[in-house]
């Protein structure tokens, strides 16, 4: 009798211990998730806001956003040139990278012979492992001279007189400009994009593809009408991740942007981005307003990334909904 009672007691203990452990895990993991996912971004935003208060008071919001002057000597600051540079270089690099990355993913999942798949996969993934400073140095020393002496004069020759498009290729080709920067950025984001899109393609249930083939579809039709629509949200996800990387990329861009706080008039003009301005000027910002203006620019980058990722997430949700119905 006693034994039974004891056994029951220890069983209860074990149970409560288990419950305790479970609760402890729930609370601590929840705390970390909350901290990393919610609290940390909010804190970072608040600190940026606090440090930028001087510049916010001085320049306001709309004015700072649309003003194109950046003059540290006269302490007269506006962030329009940097925001423009960031957004344009990101969009351009996405335009170059997206078709290539999707093409790579299609090749790996649908077209390549089985023994060849892992080779291409690994090669593309290795691209992602190269540190960005290497891309910057390579771009500056190898690619920029080629762009300046061969590619850009050729582009000017062929496209310079075409109405509208020709305007994008005016000015002396220097190799450090919007075009070269976007090109290098696109090479940097292709592996991310390709990896995510490839994983999405692999998720397509074989039975769907097989039934399409069974109905007499060609390979191209299967890819276009089954694989891509089925994975639209996955593709969008890959694009978003890569956009995040392109937005925040600093080192490579510093080498290639030409660092001119001006709205570039053509693809061959030097420009600057938010991260480049921060990296270049933070250490030597010697007055309070100057430093505060840089924090303000950082805050804007925070907002720009948030909005861009927000819009992208919204698009994914809509796509998913549409696919389900």
């Amino acid at each position, binding site marked *: 009798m006693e034994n039974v009672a004891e056994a029951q007691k220890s069983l209860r203990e074990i149970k409560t211990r288990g419950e305790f452990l479970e609760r402890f895990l729930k609370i601590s993991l929840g705390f970390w998730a909350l901290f990393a996912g919610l609290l940390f971004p909010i804190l970072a935003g608040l600190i940026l806001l606090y440090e930028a208060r001087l510049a916010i008071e001085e320049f306001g919001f709309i004015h700072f956003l649309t003003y194109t002057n950046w003059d*540290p*000597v006269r302490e007269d600051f506006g962030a329009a040139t940097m925001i423009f540079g960031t957004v344009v270089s990101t969009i351009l690099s996405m335009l170059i990278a997206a078709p290539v990355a999707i093409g790579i993913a299609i090749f790996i999942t649908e077209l390549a012979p089985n023994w060849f798949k892992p080779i291409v996969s690994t090669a593309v993934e290795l691209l992602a492992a190269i540190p960005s400073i290497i891309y910057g140095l390579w771009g500056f020393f190898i690619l920029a001279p080629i762009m300046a002496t061969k590619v850009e004069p050729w582009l000017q020759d062929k496209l310079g007189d075409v109405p509208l498009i020709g305007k994008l290729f005016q000015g002396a080709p220097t190799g450090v400009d919007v075009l070269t920067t976007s090109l290098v950025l696109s090479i940097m984001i292709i592996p991310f994009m390709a990896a995510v899109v490839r994983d999405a393609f692999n998720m397509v249930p074989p039975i769907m593809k097989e039934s399409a083939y069974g109905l007499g579809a060609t390979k191209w039709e299967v890819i276009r009408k089954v694989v891509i629509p089925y994975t639209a949200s996955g593709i969008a996800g890959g694009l978003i991740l890569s956009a995040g990387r392109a937005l925040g990329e600093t080192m490579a861009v510093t080498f290639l942007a030409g660092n001119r706080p001006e709205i570039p008039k053509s693809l061959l003009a030097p420009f600057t981005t938010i991260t*480049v301005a921060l990296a270049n*000027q933070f*250490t*030597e*910002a*010697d007055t309070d307003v100057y*430093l505060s203006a840089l924090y303000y620019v950082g805050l804007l980058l925070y907002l720009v990334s948030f909005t861009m990722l927000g819009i992208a997430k919204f698009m994914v949700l809509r796509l998913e909904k549409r696919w389900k119905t």
Partner: protein
Amino acid sequence: MKKVLLATAVFSGAVLALEITGAGATFVFPIMSKWAFEYNKETGHKVNYQSIGSGGGIRQAINRTVDYGATDGPLTPEDVEKHKLLQFPVVIGADVMAYNIPEIGNTVLNMDPKAVCDIYMGKITKWNDPYLQQLNPNVKLPDRPIVVVHRSDGSGTTWIFTNWLSKTCPEWREKVGYGTSVKWPTGVGAKGNEGVTNYVKRSQGGIGYVEYIYAKQNNLPVARIKNREGNFVEPNVRTMQEAAKNAKWDKSKHFYEVLTDQPGKDAYPITGATFVLIPKDQPERAKKANVFFKWVFEKGDKYAQQLEYIPMPENVKKLIFEYWKEHGVAP
């Protein structure tokens, strides 16, 4: 027994060794590290210098997070007083105009403030501009566009260059001004002295201002610059020291003096100095830093010269020692 001895040696070493921390200008980082290394070898004391930039150096010195700060542009006497600091120069450097014109190779060109100013304002755009040609009657300058290169990052090198232009070119003073970074009317920005050097090296028709040592190491030709006495002066150790010697160093103004455009027949006009800031209200800390700087002034010259920096002239060193005594921070 050996172990015990070793332990005591290590222990006593740890007790005796002073550790000095400094932060600031990137320009002096190579020589600061060299000095710190030799000083450590000789005395066992440690100096830890972080090259975070002049702006950061000033801020950390004001916040007292370091024992000394280093900056390329001096603080005004009022600022030094306001933040209860002391300031003195430690080493001299200069900006040179390096260029790359394949047609003339290593021929040394003459330039005056107006020529450099107009190039950087974007008014002179070709190397065979009549104004440049008239300054160099014996050189046949080519019909080649000028590629103007400047620093993209904030820098003491830029401070010295733009300060000199502001002093000598009214249009520059009015439209651009001077600082560690400015709103450039024209040109392409490259990161760091090495960035500008490389950019000039690989663009035909390029011109850029860089720290003396970088042009020298890369074998780029550098221009003779017209000083205020009207002489075209080549940058070298002698002409830079000449600029420092003739400057009116004033202890009561905390050595606030900019070495650009100094008088003197042979003074190189785009010269500057790096200044050290120490806390006046914490004499023990200041003294600790000054033990190091006394050693630098007495024994550090040869290391500076090895790295192509210019040591302070003897008369200025004497002034600095007096300055320390006056404020009770002599080591």
